[in-house]
Structure formats: C-alpha cells, structure tokens
C-alpha cells in the first residue's frame, strides 16, 4: 500500500513516518494531523484528560482507522425505549472498536456527561448500551459525541431476535451447569459403590449411596434433559424420528429402571450413565448454539452497518431520515449521488444513471428518467433524483423474489441431516434388539423381571451418546475453523450439503468480479492525486473506488460535500470541484454521465470512468475447483459482451448471459433434476431464488440483504478462495463425521452382545460410554487448524 501511495503522491514521499496523532494514517509533512476531523477528535480527548487512550491503544492496521467521517444520519427515536424511571435506553452497534482502549475511551467520555446512567460497551458483540436521564440531552447529541472520535454508531434494530437466541443459549448453559454438577457428584458416589463391591460394603451403606445418587440425578435429569425431551416429543408428534428420540427413551428408561432398583435395594443402578450422557450431549449443544449464534450475529451486524436510512422529503421541503420500513407509499425520497436506493418506486424528478448490478446483474449503468421504475438496491451514480415510493405489497420486486424463494425452498424439500438419517434406522434396530433379548431370555426360562433388566442393559449400553455427538462435535469445530477464516456458516446442515456438491454455478457481477468498481484508463497523475484528496473526504462508492485506485490518500482541508452532487474545495487560485457532470458544469455526452468529473481552476474537466474487474484470485480458484472434480458454470444477468470477457479471462466455457431471475432458477432446477448437486455462489437480488433452490449456497458479504439471508454461507473479503476453503472444510468434516459414526456404531455392535448376554455392570456401562464419547470428540478435534486442500 505504501509503495503505490508514494508513486501517486510524490509530494509526500519519504514522509511515511509522519503519522496522524489521532488516526495513525499518513499525514502531510510537518502536520500533526491528517485532517480537521482528527484534530477535533484529538482536542476533545485531550481536553477531557483522556490522553491515556493514545498510550494504551493498539491500532489494527487491517481495520478502518479511527478517522472521523461524515456520518450517515439514522433515525434513533424509534429505537429508544423509555424506562419506568423516566430514563431512556438505546442499544447501538459500534463500528471501529479495536481494543480495550476504545472501550475505555467511549465509556469514560460518555460517563463524564451529566445525566448518563449507563454507558457500557460490550467488546464481544461491539454493542453500546446507553441509558440516560433527560438532562443528558437528545440521543442524537450523545451519538454525535462518540462519532466525532471516529467511531460509527448504528441503532441496533434486532433486539427481539437477539434476546431470543440469548435466552436459548442461557437456558442451555444453565442445563449444562446442572448436568455437570450432578454428573460429577453422582460419578463420585458411583466410584464408592463400585469400590464397595470388592471391598465388602454393607447393603445399608450401598443403599444410602444409591438414594443420594437418585436424589441428585432425578431433578438434574428432569431439568437438564428438557431440551432433548422437547425435541424428541416434537419429532414424534410429527411422526418423525430424530437423534433425540433414542436419547430421550434411553435416559428415561435408565432413570426409571435405576429408581426401581434403588427402591428394591439391589446392587446396580445406572444414574451415573444417564447424567453423564446428558452432560456430554449438552456440551455439544452449547458449543453448536454458540458457533452458529456468533455467525448469525456477525451477518446481522454487517447488514445493520450497511443499511442506511432513507431521506424522505416532507411536505414543507425539509428532509427527514426514516427507516426503510417506515416509508409509506407515496412518500417522496431523495437519493443523492453514490447513495443506494432504499425503496421501490418511480422517479419523480431528475435524470441520472443507475448501477443496477445488484438487482439485475447487469454492469452497464441504466439511465433513469422521470416515470421510470427503480428498485431498492440500485445505486445512483449520477445527480440526485427524487423517487415516489410505490405501493408496497405484492407488486414490488422484493416480494416477487420472496415468492420465488419460497417456492424454490418448497421444491427442494427438507434435507435430512446425516444424524437424523442414522437415527431413522438406529432407533428401530436398537429397540427391536432389546425386545428380542427380553423374549429370548424368557424363552430360556428366566423370570420376566430379570429378562426385562437385561433388555434394559442393552438399551443402556447402546444409548447413542457417541452417535449423538458424532455430528455436532465435528460440526462445531468446523464452524469455528471457518469463522476464523471469515466464512460464516448459517445453516446447521450446510456443511453436509456442501460436501456433496459436484457442480458450482457462479453469478458474475459482484461474485466473480469485485463488489466495488475500479478506475479504468490512466488519467493524468496530477489530476488523480488532487481528485483523490477531495474524494477521501467522502464515502460514496465512486469516490471510494477513486481513492482505492491511488492506494490511499488523505483528505484535503476544507472539502465541502454537496449532498448528492459532489465535493468542492476553495483554494487561493479558485474552486476545485469533483462530482457529477452537471455539478462541475461539464458538457458531457450520455455515455460519460456515469463516473466522476474533476474541474480544477484553469484546467479542462477530466472524466474518471469506472468498470468491474475480476476478483484477483478468481482464475486460480476456478482452476482448483476443476481439479477437485467440480464442473463450473456461469449464469449472469449481464449482456453477452462483459460475460464473455470475464468467462474467457477465467477459462469458463460453460456460460450463459442475459439470464432473468426465472431463467436462472429454471436452469438450477433443471440441473438438480439431471442429478447434479449444485453449489450456487451469487450476490444479487436476482440470485436469491437460485440460492434457495440450489443444493448449497454461498454469498459474499457485499451481497444484497436478501441474498445474504438466504445463503447457507456468507464469506468476507476480496478473495474468492473462501469458496474453495469452505468446500474443502466441508469435505473433511464429512469424512470425520462418517468416521465418528462408524466408531460409534462399531462400539455398539461390540457392546450389544455383551449386554444381551447379561454381563454388563454399571461401571462397565459408564466406562464404555465415556470412552466412546471421548474418542469421538478427540477424532473431531483433528479438524482443528486444518488448512484448505
């Protein structure tokens, strides 16, 4: 980065050491700060005596520097909750928290404001909880205080959903704690009982220990077993069976049998087996819930940070920031240059070019005129336009997509998880074996009571502890491994499905190509440098692309952003302007309406054009996918020219252009009917139905909201290699799952005859069960730290 920077900005070459005292980015020679925002932030921090922040902080160079930027305004009022004591409460997602010092700074600064009751940042979830009394002022003021330091705050909308997952996770951890407590203590008592068998313990002592075990185990099982009992009951009431059915039957049977034995004062009880089984299984459940909860939370945080508000024009002409869902049909909405359109509607005023790639997959900008229809997700590349929101309902594109997705999901049917497939034959086999054992012993003349006891031993020894752990143990470790590599796994069975695929279908725009446009041609370096110094003050897609093409630039002083038009900067020799053709007063032809124009005093206007480029590692990834035995197809909504160009560049000979969403969907379904298991990788709104219909699906984190919600996996970053890695991890996970199941089944096959011949004692059952569970977990741990390939 620094070399390109030096190339394009010779004036600052050799001054790399001069870093801004606030954000740490390079700044002009002799200056302490890179921009006015940073100067102001430093003054605030210094004025409050919080300089310790600068000594303590550790800036992560891969993350966004804490440079204050012009922020998008969010509507906060609808998220504020008033508490009974009159205080207001607001939850916000904080972007830019990098280390403990950031947390300290935000909390200290807010804590010094009068009227703040609670200001606490959760570093794990990057959330700020604010509670304040009316004298602290408005929520906007408090948010602004933090944003001036260089953070971004977005109201956290998904309170209800988040508390729901929190509650399930907490209930599981509570169950785990209770089961662990009971398992440890019952096992301790059991060791005493087993030792007593050879050391000559009296029946009264043994009975006492059995009763104490029962008192511990019964309430613990009743409490900690609930997640399994509920799930088993749910499956049975729908005439299905899952792994929780044999677990529940086993646990309940073992417990009631042991209770009867305790009452009768006999030698053997199995309370320890029952409780340990629940304890092991709950470990798997908690880890599973945690891993997937974290993945989902990260996705929702992305979406929250990206989804802006909509600027609604009120009747008196003022602009109101509203949330997307609160915009009523008929409202007029202003969309500035570089802004993403938030509603479906019709253009009321203004002419512009729209980047429709996320909606149609077509890269060439489409002109928009008054009366033309526009859809949420398009980006305005030209001057500001006003849009009249259309009646929300079945007519919108989004609703149409949602209908297609629903239909596609119906047709795909429910994928039956590996564990449930095993459970389907496991349950009847084990239960029949137990029944046959019982009948066989009765036939040999054993009393019915004793025959029942032996039959129960069969059920206990085959209790599917290792089997039930086989899949989740591997899955949890694989999920964590993927998460570390920036791949978010959202669906429980996605890894199993991903391992089965034999074909990959790619979308082009935003999937094989970079999500952001890049500068084409080689404009004069001087113009580029000046344009970049203006552009750095803005966060619109085109200005960002311009800055990125220079390898980074620092914003010039005194840049004024004209909402939806461009940027300007006054200097001694006149005004420099960067923006749309109309804004700088260029007489532009229709084909140069898109892109940015720069006018410097005394120079002719310069046009910067932007185009898409393939992701840097795309050719390698495509070749490696082929080497894995997968066939590749490219389905794009774009015109033939660009699709052919990218296909040729990446060596894909099976491609199709100009696909409407319905055509894409039909193509995926035809492949499925021909027996292919397809992985769909796409980002556009038009890909969403395909993502739902395909055997497995992936989306980049830059994808349309609906696509990210639909896809099984979401990957971050510029590279395409996560597709490769996810498939590799899925395949090795499937191998480990199969080994685990084989281990568990072999163990059961070996143990069943021993149990059926009536030789199993409680200590043998407990040892065998723990041993097989530990074996399965150890085998799953092999997935850890494994790289692609």
């Amino acid at each position: 980065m620094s070399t390109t920077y030096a190339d394009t900005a010779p004036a600052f070459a050799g001054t790399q050491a001069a870093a801004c005292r606030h954000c740490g980015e390079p700044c002009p020679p002799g200056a302490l700060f890179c921009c006015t925002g940073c100067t102001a932030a430093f003054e605030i921090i210094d004025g409050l005596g919080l300089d310790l922040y600068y000594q303590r902080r550790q800036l992560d160079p891969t993350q966004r520097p804490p440079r204050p930027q012009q922020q998008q305004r969010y509507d906060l009022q609808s998220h504020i909750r008033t508490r009974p004591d009159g205080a207001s409460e607001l939850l916000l997602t904080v972007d830019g928290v990098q280390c403990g010092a950031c947390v300290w700074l935000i909390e200290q600064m807010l804590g010094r404001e009068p009227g703040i009751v609670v200001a606490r940042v959760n570093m794990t979830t990057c959330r700020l909880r604010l509670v304040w009394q009316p004298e602290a002022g408005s929520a906007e003021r408090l948010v602004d205080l933090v944003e001036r330091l260089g953070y971004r705050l977005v109201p956290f909308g998904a309170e209800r959903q988040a508390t729901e997952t929190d509650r399930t996770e907490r209930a599981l951890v509570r169950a785990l704690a209770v089961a662990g407590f009971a398992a440890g203590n019952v096992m301790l008592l059991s060791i005493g009982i087993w030792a007593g068998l050879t050391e000559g313990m009296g029946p009264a002592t043994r009975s006492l220990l059995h009763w104490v075990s029962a008192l511990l185990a019964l309430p613990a099982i009743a409490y900690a077993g609930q997640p399994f009992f509920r799930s088993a009951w749910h499956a049975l009431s729908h005439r299905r069976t899952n792994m929780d059915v044999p677990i529940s039957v086993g646990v309940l049977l073992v417990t009631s049998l042991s209770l009867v034995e305790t009452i009768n004062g006999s030698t053997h009880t199995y309370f320890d087996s029952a409780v340990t089984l629940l304890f092991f299984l709950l470990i798997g459940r908690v880890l599973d819930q945690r891993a997937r909860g974290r993945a989902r939370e990260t996705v929702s945080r992305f979406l929250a940070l990206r989804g802006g508000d909509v600027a609604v024009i009120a009747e008196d002409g003022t602009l109101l920031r509203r949330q997307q869902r609160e915009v009523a049909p008929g409202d007029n909405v202003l969309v500035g240059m570089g802004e993403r359109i938030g509603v479906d509607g019709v253009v009321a005023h203004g002419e512009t070019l729209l980047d429709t790639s996320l909606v149609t997959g077509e890269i060439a900008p489409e002109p928009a005129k008054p009366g033309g229809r526009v859809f949420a997700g398009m980006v305005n590349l030209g001057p500001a336009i006003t849009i009249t929101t259309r009646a929300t309902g079945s007519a919108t594109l989004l609703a149409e997509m949602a209908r297609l997705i629903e239909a596609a999901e119906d047709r795909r049917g429910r994928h039956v998880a590996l564990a449930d497939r095993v459970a389907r034959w496991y349950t009847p086999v084990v239960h029949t074996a137990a029944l046959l054992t019982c009948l066989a012993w009765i036939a040999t003349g054993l009393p019915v009571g004793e025959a029942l006891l032996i039959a129960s031993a069969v059920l206990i020894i085959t209790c599917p502890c290792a089997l039930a752990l086989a899949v989740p143990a591997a899955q949890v470790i694989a999920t964590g491994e993927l998460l570390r590599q920036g791949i978010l796994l959202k669906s429980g069975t996605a890894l199993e499905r991903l391992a089965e695929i034999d074909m990959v279908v790619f979308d082009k725009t935003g999937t094989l190509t970079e999500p952001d446009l890049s500068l084409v041609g080689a404009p004069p370096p001087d113009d580029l440098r000046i344009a970049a110094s203006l552009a750095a003050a803005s966060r619109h897609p085109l200005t960002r692309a311009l800055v990125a093409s220079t390898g980074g630039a620092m914003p010039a002083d005194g840049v004024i952003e004209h909402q939806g038009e461009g940027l300007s900067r006054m200097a001694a020799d006149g005004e420099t302007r960067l923006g749309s053709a109309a804004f700088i007063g260029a007489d532009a032809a229709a084909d140069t309406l898109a892109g940015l124009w720069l006018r410097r005093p005394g120079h002719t206007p310069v046009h910067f054009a932007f185009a898409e480029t393939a992701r840097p590692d795309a050719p390698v990834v495509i070749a490696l996918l082929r080497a894995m035995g997968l066939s590749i197809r490219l389905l794009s909504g774009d015109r033939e020219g660009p699709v052919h160009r990218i296909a040729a560049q990446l060596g894909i000979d099976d491609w199709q252009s100009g696909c409407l969403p319905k055509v894409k969907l039909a193509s995926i379904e035809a492949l499925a009917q021909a027996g292919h298991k397809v992985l769909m990788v796409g980002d556009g709104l038009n890909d969403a139905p395909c993502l739902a219909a395909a055997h497995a699906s992936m989306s980049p984190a830059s994808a349309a909201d609906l696509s990210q919600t639909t896809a099984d996996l979401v990957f971050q970053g510029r590279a395409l290699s996560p597709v490769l890695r996810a498939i590799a991890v899925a395949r090795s996970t499937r191998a480990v799952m199969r080994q685990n199941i084989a281990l568990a089944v072999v163990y059961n096959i070996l143990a069943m005859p021993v149990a059926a011949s009536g030789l199993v004692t409680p200590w043998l059952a407990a040892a065998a069960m723990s041993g097989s569970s530990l074996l399965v977990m150890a085998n799953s741990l092999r997935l850890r730290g494994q790289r692609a390939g």
Partner: protein
Amino acid sequence: MNVILWLIIASLSVAGGGLAVFLWSLRAGQYEDLKGASERILYDE
C-alpha cells in the same frame, strides 16, 4: 456410617454452593463480554 453421611452432606453443599454461584454469575451477565472483561481489568481506576 455417620461419618459418610456427614461427608456426603458437606461435599454436596460445597458443590451446590459452586453451582449456585455459577448460575448467579450467568444470570448477572458475567459471561456476556469475555473479551471486554479481559481488557477492562487494565483500565480500572
């Protein structure tokens, strides 16, 4: 015999106390921000 009874009661109350403390800390939200907790200790005033 009596000794065993007392020992069981004593050990179970110790373990039960531990369980109660854990459930309390879970309810009090002490596990919600493990990453932050490890940093916060350095900034205590």
